[in-house]
């Protein structure tokens, strides 16, 4: 049951209505039931995984105070789960256990829905409790709900205990919240179905059949993937935030116009905010604090550790490692040239500096995303090589469009141009659209336009899975 499926839409409508009608004291029970049903519908192994990890973490948290060994054991258990999850995802292998009539494949157990997201939450929960910044949760039901809350279990946002737990027992649903949640959900659906999934075929044809791409095609592929990834993930986040709001919860924002960032550090303050703030709080700051006497070297070490772990979190493989290396290089460069650049920014006009910054950051991020999207090192290197040879051959546009036209003559060209137009128009008016989507009232024009555009241009049939579901 993926977020952009019609069955999920029905599930959300029913859940929101029943949750709204229920007395406040029963809502957490109902939401727990719905969340477990949602995970169980995906696969039973995922349901088992969330219950087992919650049980372990819950038990450890009750006895963790002053017990360093237990704290480390809890952290390692959750970190190990993430690593194993990514290892099995990368290798697509598994161990088969057979004992008498029981046979069990570890692979299917490990590839559990949202494990790497709630494992991070568990680590932060144990850390907060261990250092006495948060009281251990007394209710197992509440703790399981914290891990399994269905709007966020698939791909976050990663919530700290202090951000989520207090909301469980203070669940207020107003008409304003319902309207705001609906607006946000609709925006997410639009981003996913009309923008991200429409760009997917072009990205797919360039990255997956692009042995002979020229430089400009590779560049276009990298740009398109960056935009697709943004619409896909931010669309998912909008839907998650919208549903949660309609159920009486506020989840953390994950995106803040990241494609308008004029530096890579600013980009990371605007992109996947919940994950980066988690890494900042639990990896970067502790390390920099420890090494504070080394000044800039401490910050460099912090960046190095944060992004290497972030790379491993995204996937075990050389391509994710190189993606992380790109961002380490960008951020270190920015750190070390900060003073020089601050002088530069005062010379030309602010607007020019800002626009140049946006252009450079978008290119840098798109370049790193070649590693992120490529299935293997060889195909990533092939694409990068093409950037520096035969960049703009004659008849480029025809050759660029040709691979998109898989059996469709002008249909695919038509779709491609519509997708580009829609994406560009959205990015141009994004701030204004976001303002309407975040408003608490029912907007007649916004709702009507969104729904009609989804029906007219949305991809219903083979809706793509969300890219971040694999992490």
């Amino acid at each position, binding site marked *: 049951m993926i977020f952009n499926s*019609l069955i999920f839409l029905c599930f959300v409508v029913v859940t929101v209505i029943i949750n709204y009608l229920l007395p406040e004291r029963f809502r957490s029970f109902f939401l727990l039931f719905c969340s477990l049903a949602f995970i169980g519908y995906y696969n039973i192994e995922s349901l088992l995984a969330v219950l087992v990890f919650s049980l372990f973490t819950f038990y450890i948290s009750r006895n963790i105070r002053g017990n360093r060994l237990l704290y480390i054991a809890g952290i390692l258990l959750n970190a190990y789960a993430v690593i194993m999850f990514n290892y099995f995802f990368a290798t697509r292998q598994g161990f088969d256990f057979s004992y008498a009539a029981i046979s069990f494949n570890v692979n299917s157990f490990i590839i559990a829905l949202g494990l790497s997201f709630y494992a991070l939450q568990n680590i932060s929960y144990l850390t907060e409790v261990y250092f006495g910044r948060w009281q251990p949760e007394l209710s197992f039901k509440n703790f399981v709900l914290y891990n399994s809350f269905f709007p966020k279990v698939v791909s976050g946002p990663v919530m700290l205990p202090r951000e989520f737990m207090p909301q469980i027992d203070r669940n207020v649903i107003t*008409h304003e919240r319902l*309207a705001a949640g609906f607006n946000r959900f609709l925006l997410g659906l639009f981003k996913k179905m009309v923008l991200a999934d*429409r760009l997917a075929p072009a990205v797919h044809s360039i990255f997956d059949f692009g042995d002979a791409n020229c430089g400009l095609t590779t560049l276009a592929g990298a740009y398109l993937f960056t935009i697709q990834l943004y619409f896909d993930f931010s669309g998912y986040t909008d839907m998650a935030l919208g549903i949660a709001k309609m159920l009486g919860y506020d989840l953390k924002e994950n995106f803040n116009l990241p494609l308008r960032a004029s530096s890579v550090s600013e980009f990371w303050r605007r992109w996947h905010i919940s994950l980066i703030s988690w890494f900042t709080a639990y990896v970067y700051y502790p390390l920099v604090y420890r090494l504070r006497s080394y000044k800039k070297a401490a910050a460099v070490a912090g960046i190095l550790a944060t992004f290497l772990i972030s790379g491993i979190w995204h996937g075990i493989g050389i391509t994710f490692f190189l993606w992380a290396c790109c961002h380490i290089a960008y951020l270190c460069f920015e750190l070390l040239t900060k003073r020089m650049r601050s002088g530069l920014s005062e010379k030309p006009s602010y607007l020019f500096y800002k626009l140049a910054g946006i252009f450079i950051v978008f290119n840098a991020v798109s370049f790193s995303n070649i590693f992120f999207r490529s299935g293997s090192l060889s195909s990533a290197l092939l694409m990068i090589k093409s950037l520096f040879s035969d960049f703009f051959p004659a008849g480029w546009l025809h050759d660029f469009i040709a691979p998109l*036209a898989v*059996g*469709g*003559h*002008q*249909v695919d060209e*038509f*779709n491609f141009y*519509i997708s580009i137009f829609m994406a560009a128009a959205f990015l141009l008016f994004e701030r204004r659209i976001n303002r309407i989507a975040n408003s608490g*009232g*029912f907007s*007649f024009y916004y*709702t*009507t336009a969104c*729904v*009609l555009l*989804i*029906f*007219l*241009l*949305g*991809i*219903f*049939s083979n809706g793509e899975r969300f890219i971040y579901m694999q992490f």
Partner: protein
Amino acid sequence: MNTVKKITLSVAIILLVLAGLSRLYDFALRHNANLKAAYVQRAKIDAEILFHGPCEPLWMISPAMLDSQTHVRSYNLALSHSDFADNYLHLYFYLKHNKAPKLMFLYVTPESMDANYNTFNTYRFAAFTGDPVVDSVLKECDPGYAKWTAFPFMKYAWYSSKINFDALQGLKHYLQHRTVPYYADGYEPPLQVVWDNHLEEFIQLYPHGYNFEWNKLREKYLCKTIALARQYGIEVVLYESPVLKEALLYQPNRREIVKRIKGIADAYGVEYVQFDKMKIAESRKYFMSTLNLNMEGARIFTDSLGKYISGRLYYNEFIRPHL
């Protein structure tokens, strides 16, 4: 205006617009001369010979070339990426509005029986839902789609990326009073005429060869297509055009599947003709992929096919193709 009124108005407008759009798309798609499903139901084709199947006959058999040889009118009803259910519905549409042809050549190979090759293209029939035959096929071949089509406009929204362009084109055809399709006799010369490396990729993917999987639904609709044709008194010939010989090395169970196809042909008392002994099957220079001949290869094959058909029509005997 209060919120309840706004919501009601919005829902009403959305439903109204969707219902209106649905009507508009129905109209536009039925007027698109380039859509075979629509064209064969509007135009009087009345061909004596039909060629049917997926992209192989579509790209290889030129009725214009054949007609000069056989002196009878033929039409190419084939469609790219189509399976037998797709073929069945197109034949059904054709026979609804046109006189039954004498002969129908239906392309059948082991690939046709395997669900990994080609597919049922639901979107081609979106404008014709409501017809009980169409609805029953849709329900069987694309149940996910069939479930949601009752919702206004959903039958078009479901495959919008495939349909919007066709609807716009249909509207254009209506406004320009265009009734003749871009490819009037149904034959589409292939866009790609160079070797497409498909075999190399195939070998890389299946170094030890690929075993075809027999699909029951394909079998069912192959039988239904033959039965429908025979119901109208059409003589059916199942055929396989030349397949690149070197590709056969990577298809261990091809013979076994061919045997099963022959079994179906025997059961219905129809002929299964394989043009596998033609010399062109031995050289890549006549192919653009393992199953698709290029322009030159297709010309040689069509010539052989023309001789076969002439023999069949005028002498009622089988003339063996050039070996």
